[in-house]
């Protein structure tokens, strides 16, 4: 139980955090107005400096964002997104000391369909988000989560703001720190909002087929944890495609440290240990051409909340699958309750978890074939026979097969390429080649014409965590189109490779 650097977990003492008579710990002159971390009191000015500095340092230290680079900023409407937006505005404004130099574009992904919002609620949310995005002065886009199923259309989604605020009107928006006044433009914007807003709503509602497809897929996943995983994978894919097609080179997300600690534990609990490092690192490089950045990863939710309070930033609350649910609704919800509860007793919990996450290796796979088709994380299923995956597979086989066939299973071929859950129980060998029969009446069963890939093939292209989600669905083939395309592509490549196998030189 002893770690090398700390011999003892610091126990939380019973103490009242009294800030009435305290001075700011930085400047020691101003009276403190808030307490952050364990017991650090800050005054207003010093807190602003602290937050801004942390944000800028997180971006600047890694030297990943170049001058003039187009960065897509994901805004969900929640408190951390609003804080991120505000910080970016601050950083880009002319008055800032050494201003940031990248070109942000905002994107909001409407996930109202996930919880089944009614049309009115939908409109209200969209209106508020719209006004929030417009006030920022940056180009923004609105799209639906269902668009991820129809990635071709993503190209047609133009930026919504072209008629209204120009990019460089930030100076006029008077985001003065000390007075915290509302931007002048906002008033004008409100009047015009109704006209433009409806256009945007129309833009979102046009994708009805995709919506239906999405609803069907989501509905077929049984557990809420699975649904959440699925939604996350789609969101990631949509951001990726959008950024690619509109010329952005990086995506910035507003996940705070507390959220990322919960994310790490949830990933470990759902079998996504290999991707856990990617999800909590500052730079997520699982796709070689697009980097996902998380500049708020060193902040706790409490600090973000206080920052929003100080600047009177308005957030839009959008319900999720587990809002108002009980603790055991989904694994992520449970983990959140667990971490928050533990943090209250042991204040260093979140920072311990983040530190562990930092030390994990987030090396991404080299070629496209070792990525999961759904979440694009590295594939972690190429493990030996002595592993959890093999044990799980064997256990399933032996539970469904019964005593007499037990012996056959142990000595059977358990190599990764061949195994799928259907193999042993049906006794069908999917590798048998069936030649094209020559009849062209549609009954061809040739194995080179696999129009509907079998379950085993699809599952092979998914990582462990995504496999769990896929196996909960009624029909694995109802996975999104981009997954099925990837599966077909890999299948064709592996067939090609098998044909030329004898001629390939092994470079090991």
């Amino acid at each position, binding site marked *: *139980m002893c770690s090398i*650097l700390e011999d*003892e977990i610091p126990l939380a003492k019973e103490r009242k955090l009294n800030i009435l008579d305290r001075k700011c710990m930085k400047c020691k002159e101003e009276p403190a107005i808030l307490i952050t971390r364990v017991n650090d009191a800050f005054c207003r000015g010093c807190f602003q400096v602290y937050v801004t500095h942390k944000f800028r340092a997180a971006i600047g230290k890694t030297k990943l964002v170049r001058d003039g680079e187009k960065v897509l900023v994901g805004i969900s409407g929640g408190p951390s997104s609003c804080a991120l937006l505000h910080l970016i505005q601050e950083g880009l404004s002319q008055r800032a000391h050494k201003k940031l130099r990248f070109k942000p574009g905002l994107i909001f992904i409407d996930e109202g369909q996930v919880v089944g919002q009614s049309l009115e609620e939908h409109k209200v949310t969209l209106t508020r988000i719209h006004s929030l995005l417009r006030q920022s002065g940056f180009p923004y886009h609105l799209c639906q989560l269902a668009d991820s199923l129809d990635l071709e259309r993503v190209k047609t989604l133009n930026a919504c703001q072209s008629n209204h605020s120009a990019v460089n009107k930030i100076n006029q928006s008077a985001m003065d720190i000390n007075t915290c006044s509302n931007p002048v433009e906002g008033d004008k914007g409100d009047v015009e909002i109704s006209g433009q807003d409806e256009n945007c709503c129309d833009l979102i509602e046009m994708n009805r087929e995709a919506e239906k497809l999405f609803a069907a897929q989501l509905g077929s996943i049984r557990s809420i944890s699975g649904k959440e995983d699925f939604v996350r994978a789609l969101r990631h894919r949509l951001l990726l495609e959008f950024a690619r097609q509109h010329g952005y080179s990086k995506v910035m997300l507003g996940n705070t440290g507390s959220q990322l600690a919960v994310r790490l534990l949830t990933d470990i609990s*759902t079998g996504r240990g290999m991707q856990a490092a990617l999800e909590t690192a500052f730079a997520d490089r699982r796709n070689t051409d697009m980097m996902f950045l998380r500049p708020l990863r060193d902040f706790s939710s409490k600090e973000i909340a206080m920052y929003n309070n100080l600047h009177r930033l308005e957030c839009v609350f959008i319900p999720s699958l587990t809002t108002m649910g009980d603790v055991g609704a989904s694994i992520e919800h*449970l*983990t959140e309750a667990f971490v928050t509860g533990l943090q209250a007793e042991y204040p260093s919990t979140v920072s311990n978890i983040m530190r562990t996450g930092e030390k994990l290796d987030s090396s991404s796979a080299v070629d496209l074939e070792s990525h999961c088709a759904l979440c694009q994380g590295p594939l972690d299923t190429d493990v030996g026979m002595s592993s959890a995956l*093999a044990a799980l597979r064997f256990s399933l086989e032996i539970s469904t097969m019964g*005593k007499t066939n037990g012996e056959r299973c142990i000595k059977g071929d358990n190599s990764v390429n061949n195994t799928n859950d259907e193999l042993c129980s049906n006794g069908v060998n999917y590798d048998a080649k069936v030649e094209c029969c020559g009849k062209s009446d549609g009954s061809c069963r040739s194995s080179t014409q696999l129009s509907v890939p079998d379950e085993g093939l699809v599952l092979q292209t998914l990582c*462990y965590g995504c496999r769990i989600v896929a196996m909960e669905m009624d029909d694995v083939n109802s996975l999104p189109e981009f997954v099925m395309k990837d599966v077909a592509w890999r299948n064709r490549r592996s067939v090609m490779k098998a044909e030329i196998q004898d001629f390939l030189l092994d470079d090991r």
Partner: protein
Amino acid sequence: MWAERPRGNALCKECFFHAFEEEIHHTIVHAELFKRNETIAIGASGGKDSTVLAYVLKLLNDRHDYGVNLVLLSVDEGITGYRDDSLETVKRNQEQYGLPLKIISYEELYGWTMDAIVKQIGLKNNCTFCGVFRRQALDRGALMLKVDKIATGHNADDIAETVIMNVLRGDIGRLRRCTAITTGTDGALPRCKPFKYTYEKEIVMYAYFKKLDYFSTECIYSPNAYRGFARAYIKDVEKIRPSAIIDIIHSGESLSVKKDIRLPVQGVCERCGYISSNAVCKACVMLEGLNKGLPRLGIGKTHKERRKMQEMLQQETGAADSTPCTDQSLKSSCKCENKTDQSECSSQTYDSDNASGCSTYSKSQKCKDGCSSTNPRTVAKEKLSIFGKLKQPPSIDF
């Protein structure tokens, strides 16, 4: 009688037995845990894991002819109301399964029982003592029996808890090692966990249906352990998704650590010769502390303990020239190997909340050697030799 497996299939009793046993056989075969003619010591506590382990290993050894010799090894920590009862169970197991048994106690090895330790240290950190002592006790007992391997009854739930606990505590070294099915292959006696992929629920079900005899009370000191949080979390996650336990183990197996992270290096303890990542192993440190009246020596922060020791020294040697090593002499002679911990040695002006002392004993050892104070310290030095050079040769022969 039907059993529903946590993984979702419902089986009748006979099929369940078959599935359970074959899964363990699969684990053993594919991880190559046993070789022909090896002697395996089964860590037997009398609880359900070790009872079922003894039963199943004997059964599989006969059925699949592994060709290994099995012995039972039990450790008596000296916890009244818990261990003495469970030892009776182990003795019954010895008769029932016909395996030889050896019992080794903390009293005979270290001269301390857990009850006496708890009286000294209180209820909060006693699990540390028990864990460290037990590990050594198992190894020493195994050496006395001349076995090749130790098999423990750690099940899937235990390993999942350990993974979560290590993430929460930031212990990256342990996180890397804890999911290995065989540990300690370099140097010390290897130990393996045949139950690595077996759910605790299934072990209980197996023992219940087979009417195996085991002792089922928790250690009386366990409610205050930090592990309790991880255990509660695992139980809750299991309710949501029963396969989560294996998922956590899979995650643990897939974790990889960055290359440039500093990890503890394995060496040998100076005093007893046991493996250790510091100059003196934890068990020796803790024992010294217990014997000298500083029970928190192995647990508390090093600089605080040194300060306490200095205070004790002052009391011992009277008021004459009570200036122990000052900052300056310590600073100059201190060659801290711990590069990441860039702090000075402790001093009297230490603020108790300022936690930046050295954390390796080798450093403190050098500090004492560089000390130029004129205190009559011969008596004190012998007493608190933990911070001084090795005076006597290792007393236990490895």
